[in-house]
């Protein structure tokens, strides 16, 4: 069943993208982002996208590239601090922005993929986030109702994958990718290496292939956002 494998990101997106779609993009900062698929999305020229992603990339890398081209109408994120173009568009009312607490965002995406339309959380009670949301008491404490999130397309990045769509992530590059893989009507995964089916240990697979409709091997720059290092003491 090699029908899931595509030769590159552009091919993997072809026939799927339309203006106005909701796209989920994995990654935390620049770590574990689907670099190749973001570039292909830029190439596609799709407009008025709603993008669900914890962050918005930097000016010249990651989702920042789609901001440059004004393809994004709205972002649903938890933190967007590292992007000047984002700030400019937002302050000029050229971009909509919906902030979610990071854990609420992660859980909304998991819920969306898991057939759970709503759940209650303590996070954000008494803050701006709670305004207009249903409040409910459980065991004497107040919680707010948050809704499940799904997407027309999810683009995720994994370390290794196979023709069945099974994925394994590496270290903290896992982050939002596994939940987003479950919450896309169509999920496309880019990996560093496509291996033969059977190579990935069934006990180690993070995303079972059922969630992945298309997969491609990409080239990854894996840019580092903050290179903090420990100096070796010289003898």
């Amino acid at each position, binding site marked *: 069943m090699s029908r899931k494998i595509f030769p590159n990101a552009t091919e993997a997106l072809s026939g799927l993208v339309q203006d106005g779609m909701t796209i989920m993009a994995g990654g935390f900062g620049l770590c574990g982002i689907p670099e190749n698929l973001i570039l292909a999305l830029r190439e596609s020229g799709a407009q008025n996208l709603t993008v669900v992603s*914890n962050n918005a990339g930097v000016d010249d890398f990651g989702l920042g590239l789609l901001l440059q081209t004004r393809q994004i109408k709205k972002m649903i994120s938890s933190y*967007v601090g590292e992007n000047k173009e984002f700030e400019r568009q937002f302050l000029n009312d050229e971009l909509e922005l919906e*902030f979610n*607490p990071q854990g609420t965002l992660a859980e909304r995406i998991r819920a969306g993929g898991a057939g759970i339309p709503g759940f209650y959380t303590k996070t954000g009670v008494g803050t701006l986030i709670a305004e207009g949301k249903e409040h409910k008491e459980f065991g004497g404490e107040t919680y707010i109702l948050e809704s499940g999130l799904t997407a027309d397309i999810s683009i995720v990045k994994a370390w290794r994958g196979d023709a069945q769509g099974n994925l394994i992530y590496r270290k*903290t*590059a896992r*982050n939002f990718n596994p939940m987003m893989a479950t919450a896309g009507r169509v999920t496309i995964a880019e990996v560093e290496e496509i291996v033969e089916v059977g190579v990935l240990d069934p006990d180690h697979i993070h995303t079972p292939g059922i969630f992945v409709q298309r997969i491609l091997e990409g080239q990854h720059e894996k840019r580092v956002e903050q290179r903090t290092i*420990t100096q070796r003491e010289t003898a």
Partner: protein
Amino acid sequence: MPWTRNELAREAAKELQDGFYVNLGIGIPTLVANHIPSNIDVTLQSENGMLGMGAFPYEEDVDPDLINAGKQTITELDRTSYFSSADSFAMIRGGHIDLSILGAMEVSETGDLANWMIPGKMVKGMGGAMDLVAGVKRVVVVMDHTNKKGEPKILKQCTLPLTGIKVVDRIISDLGVFDIVPGGIKIVSLSPETTEEEVRAKTEAAIV
């Protein structure tokens, strides 16, 4: 004499207990990791999906797939495990983390915390702060006692948009350590040469 940033971190490190799982915020809280006493065992959680966070890497060990919630390159330890953001915040929201040490713009006398947005300025987002203060067992705030204009940051009520209500257990400012108790703020200790009088003058919240 107000505590320096480093002294603040050292004071905050006294919150750590053997066997604790701890989440440290960005800024001064991050420095707390440098003051963990060698006789206790503490595991640091990073909310982007890691338990058991190590130090910054040597130059040649930098790994773009291995960062903390501040997007800084870090290292793993023998004990480390990785997980998704959903599992990470399930851990946080579910009350499994013993202690979170965070920065603050304002704290109220009932433990309300504001640390994510200033109206009129560009808002970067709350990241995981709202989840941490809502879910972690004990929340300790590390902050300057007053703002750049010398105005109190420990208030009767916060003026900035809130991160959480009734969430702060303890404040460690450059002037001392203060607990949120019924009725207001209780002085636990003061920095060298700082007087209760000075603290009262620089605090809007009731001191009990």
